[in-house]
């Protein structure tokens, strides 16, 4: 049994380890270790295409995660304890957004936005000389749709586990609903919101398939990596991959710590 578990862990971590190892290769081959150096990390960090793609990914991930956290938290606050048709409708949309394959979301967003832009652009151009096109905005909108649903699920879960007595006590003591929210509810759900934000950021940063459809003229880091892989594997891609994984891991650990702290505070 123990042997089996060890084998599965090896299976899980060996491929990742090999990428990290080969990223340290001093030679040109991506599949053979020829001396140890960190030169490919330097090469990757000095490649303007990589840096531009990285910067696009970070911007999209940050903006979409902020919007998803704010809008998702607002919705979660309203939905907690709510019943009736409106609640059922929202629940349905949250679940549809999470369940529909990412590829279908990507396609649907692409053809809907392109069609809308085709209708709107002649008017807009005549009025302001400005045209709408796929790019940063559509990336943020499409990623935010999915991650907002994650935030709703996480924050609502925390809200429903909250001790209602605290909020009622605050109201009874004469605190207005805004004061109660700021001084009681918000501090209690803050860890859940932050965890939702970090998961949203990670999702957006790692997403390939939705971005592939809606990125327009922009290139995110996963899109860059994918098109590089198509041209062949290089130690530079290994270095980028290793850095991306380390960054995702860091965010994940912070998200976990946040959720953990929220649990501790509640008890």
């Amino acid at each position, binding site marked *: 049994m123990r042997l*089996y578990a060890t084998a599965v862990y090896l299976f899980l971590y060996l491929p990742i380890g090999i990428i990290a190892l080969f990223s340290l290769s001093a030679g040109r081959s*991506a599949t053979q270790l020829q001396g140890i150096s960190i030169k490919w990390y330097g090469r990757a960090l000095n490649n303007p295409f990589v840096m531009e793609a990285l910067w696009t990914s970070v911007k999209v991930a940050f903006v979409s995660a902020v919007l998803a956290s704010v809008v998702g938290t607002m919705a979660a606050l309203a939905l907690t304890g709510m019943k009736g048709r409106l609640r059922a409708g*929202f629940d349905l*949309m949250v679940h549809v957004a999470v369940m529909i394959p990412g*590829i279908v979301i990507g*396609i649907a967003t692409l053809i809907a936005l392109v069609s809308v832009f085709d209708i709107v652009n002649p008017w807009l151009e005549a009025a302001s000389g400005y045209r709408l096109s796929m790019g940063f905005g559509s990336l943020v*909108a499409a990623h935010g749709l999915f991650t907002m649903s994650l935030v*709703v699920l996480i924050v609502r879960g925390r809200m429903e586990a909250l001790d209602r007595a605290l909020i009622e006590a605050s109201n009874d003591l004469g605190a207005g609903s805004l004061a109660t929210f700021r001084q009681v509810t918000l501090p209690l759900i803050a860890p859940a919101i932050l965890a939702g934000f970090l998961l949203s950021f990670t999702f957006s940063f790692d997403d390939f*398939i939705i971005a592939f459809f809606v990125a327009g003229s922009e290139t995110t880091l*996963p899109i860059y990596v994918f098109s590089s892989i198509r041209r062949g594997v290089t130690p530079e891609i290994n270095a980028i991959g290793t850095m991306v994984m380390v960054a995702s891991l860091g965010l994940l650990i912070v998200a976990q710590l946040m959720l953990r702290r929220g649990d501790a505070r509640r008890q």
Partner: protein
Amino acid sequence: MALTQKQTRWLLLTPAGLWYAALLLLPLAVVLIFSFGERNAVGGYAPGFTFEQYANLPARFAAFRNTMTLAPLGTLAALLIAYPLAYFLAVKVSSRWKTTLLVLVIVPFWTSILIRSYAWIFLLGGRGIPALFDWVGIEGVRLINTPFAVLIGIVYGYLPLMVFPIYVALEKLDKQLLEAAADLGTPPWRSFLQITLPLSMPGVLTGTMLVFILLMGEFLIPAILGGGKVFFVGNALVDLFLQSRNWAFGSAVAVALVVIMLIVVTLYGRLARRFSVGRDDVGLM
């Protein structure tokens, strides 16, 4: 100005509602409408009302066949590998190590699946496992760009998602049941089959459902490890929308994919419910 509870609620829900309307409901409606339309001569979409696109679906039969064989196979393989591990973590590991070991299983899932699939190019490519086979005298083994490579990628990519729900179900299992069975002289394999396995079924069902749903829409793993030879519906969709720009037909393929997914999930859910109702007597103990 004080807002009534109802006003506050509307204010809080409006941004999310608009977001869902503009970027979920509208796009899905557009896909549905386009699937009944025609292809524009220069690519894209021309309005129309025809069932031609749906009649043309058999043209992508191979993609649907590959998806509908490799997705269930991959799910099954992931289950067979995940179950013993989940069992080990839930039942055998001391509580001191439990969380750490569980986190170690889940962590890879939250890192880029693109890079994790890419890693297998090394292991399955000419200098990886085939070279090992060469070394022991079995020559000419080719792994990369085969269905087997895609299957490995699938199991590797989705194993964490399978382990977690099964672990949760097994963790909740009352160990006294097993002790009681042992006291009554039940051999371990029998108490596993009659107690542990049935009680862990909810986790198994959640895990298989999650993995299966995600696999139906998979694109990256076949694209990276199948090398254009083993393609899924997802790969056909990328081709139809980004290369040949046949939006009407592509929409019909997307609708067909979602419909098949819904049918499978509904049937599976129903089967699962019947199965767990049949086992309710165990649950009542």
